[in-house]
């Protein structure tokens, strides 16, 4: 295992530079992740809108029922039926909605005729839609009864309406239990991890490859009785060990920050996704390591490649905010599919065949990138050996 041991001695000799990158990335990732506040969209509080109810019809039970129903969800404000005072009330936001029940409304409703309620509203107020929905719900239910049970008395109709409309369906928001802050933050951390991984792997792998690809050392190694295949296997084994070690260090931070969340399905999928990405990043680093000729080029490529793919693929800026052309270009990098899978994992509140298929498709694509690039690298190495 001479080559394998030499691999880690070279890494060890370059540990200063690698550690600086690792520490800076970890600190930045921790700071940025903790500074990130996901939108608080999980709580819901009902608001009561101030409305005025003016009845020009008879004091029928149907109108009274409507008024009572609206009173359960809105504040009924008593206002005199004076056009000027009503306008003032709207202007000063004393009320946001004025409902006027026209004369003959009850009779028209009971006979199944079409009749319009009149409303005066504050323009562009979202409350209008809410009140419209309540009114429509009441009247549509009433109309249904009138159409299919025309023999119902008004008292029975109002009674039925009251019973029906007081029924509530219990809604359990599953995401409020599991779609926690951790999901959002861990997804952000794991997205950012792609940048760190790329930079650290390119630096480490290139440092070693630069040494082993030195013409004199290469020729000297070729004079030895160790087979080229054995050397390559040891080299690849060294690369994989280094990549896994880097991955372990980086994910260890996620366990510290997100604790038990990392043992949930979401957490485990994030880990799996990052591991698959590590293999692809390693493969690309191996290719770059075989292409660069100097330490200067190595640092430049590490920064440009890691930053470039991160910006394109939505590591720093969410993919939703990126243009279609940018995303199209980004889709030719594994980082894009890695970030996409991360986002899907973080957003998933339950896992079914569809969500899992999409996530695993992204992972397979990342892996395919890795295998394809490794294939190109091995061909390149062989080509160079033949030419030499």
């Amino acid at each position, binding site marked *: 295992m001479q080559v394998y041991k*030499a691999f880690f*001695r*070279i890494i*060890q000799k370059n540990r200063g530079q690698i550690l600086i990158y690792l520490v800076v990335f970890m600190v930045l990732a921790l700071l940025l992740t903790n500074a990130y506040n996901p939108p608080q969209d999980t709580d819901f509080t009902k608001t009561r809108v101030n409305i005025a109810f003016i009845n020009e019809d008879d004091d029928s039970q149907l109108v009274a029922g409507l008024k009572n129903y609206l009173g359960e969800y809105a504040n009924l404000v008593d206002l005199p039926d004076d056009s000027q005072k009503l306008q003032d009330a709207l202007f000063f936001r004393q009320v946001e909605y004025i409902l006027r029940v026209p004369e003959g409304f009850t009779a028209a409703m009971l006979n199944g005729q079409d009749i319009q309620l009149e409303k005066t509203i504050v323009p562009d107020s979202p409350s209008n839609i809410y009140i419209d929905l309540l009114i429509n719900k009441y009247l549509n239910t009433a109309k249904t009864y009138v159409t299919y049970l025309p023999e119902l008395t008004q008292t029975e109709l109002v009674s039925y309406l009251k019973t029906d409309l007081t029924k509530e369906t219990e809604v359990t928001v599953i995401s409020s239990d599991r779609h926690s802050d951790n999901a959002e933050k861990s997804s952000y951390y794991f997205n950012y991890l792609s940048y760190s991984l790329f930079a650290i792997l390119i630096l480490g792998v290139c440092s070693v490859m630069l*040494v082993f690809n030195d013409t004199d*050392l290469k020729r000297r190694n*070729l*004079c030895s*009785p*160790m087979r080229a295949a054995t050397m390559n296997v040891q080299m690849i084994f060294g690369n994989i060990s280094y990549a896994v070690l880097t991955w372990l260090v980086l994910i260890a931070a996620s366990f510290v920050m997100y604790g038990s969340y990392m043992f949930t399905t979401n957490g485990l999928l994030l880990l799996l996704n990052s591991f698959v990405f590590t293999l692809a990043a390693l493969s690309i680093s191996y290719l770059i390591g075989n292409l660069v000729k100097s330490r200067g080029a190595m640092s430049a490529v590490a920064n440009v490649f890691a930053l470039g793919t991160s910006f394109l693929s939505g590591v720093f800026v969410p993919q939703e905010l990126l243009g279609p052309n940018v995303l199209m270009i980004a889709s030719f990098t594994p980082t894009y599919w890695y970030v996409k899978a991360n986002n899907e994992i973080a957003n998933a509140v339950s896992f079914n065949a569809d969500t899992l298929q999409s996530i695993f498709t992204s992972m397979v694509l990342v892996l395919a990138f890795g295998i394809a690039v490794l294939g190109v690298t091995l061909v390149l190495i062989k080509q160079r050996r033949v030419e030499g």
Partner: protein
Amino acid sequence: MVINVKNLVKRYGDLIALDHFNLEVQEGEVLGLLGPNGSGKTTAINCILSLLKYDKGTIDIFDQPMTPDAYHLKRDIGIVMQNVAVFNELTVYENIDYFCGLYISDKQTRKKLVAEAIDFVGLNDFSKFYPKKLSGGLLRRLNIACGIAHQPKLIILDEPTVAVDPQSRNNILEGIQKLNQQGATIIYTSHYMEEVEQIASRIAIMDKGKIIAMGTNEELKKMIKSGEHINLELLNPGDLDLAGINALPHIISAERRDHQLVIKSERGKNNLIPILDHLKDQQIAIGKIYSEPPTLNDVFLEITGKELRD
């Protein structure tokens, strides 16, 4: 036979680097491969080691064909490259251990061999040093230790003393002689004729990809007409009659360099008395007289018409 190269041809485009190159190396000898820069020494070595493809010819090592996959042959070959090939990230000890480990897998054996190699090249005080901390001479010694640590039967040293101070050079040359005494067959390439003369039991002189002369030091010098060189330091060389000296019998050439008169005469002919008489007749006073035997440079010069260091 340790090495048998027949009709080796290597071309780089239109340039013929090796032109029907032939070489035979017997067990236990030190073969000096001497030639000016660009004569094809390193190309020949690279072909012998299967580091370079060649266009024509055969190469046998230990009576078996040498190929890139002849790992069993490579096990018995030690190579010291012209350029120092060591890991800057590994210490002296680790470097020797790395290269020795490519040949020897047993840890205990390797430990012993590495210690012996360090001792052999005299790097005991530097075993924990990194190569960048070593002087040029020490670095060359490390390069040699890396090549010989596994105690190979055949050692090929390709210009191992380039840019090395005289003291380190002597250490290296003594070491090579010691390796030969221990039983190793050695091929030593250089463009320094003094080195080759000092250590080689047989010398092959190369030019333009061919071996133009081969034999022992004495055999090579017997191949040429010129004998000793007579050097005279003249105190008043103003009216020197150079044509008259050249006309004396058995004189090959007479050349004046400032106050120095260098005369090459035919081998086995003593011309000193007629020369002195001639100078006396011209009333030229002589400060010093000394004579030198012919060198390999004279051999090269007579065969090719140019200096070995051109």
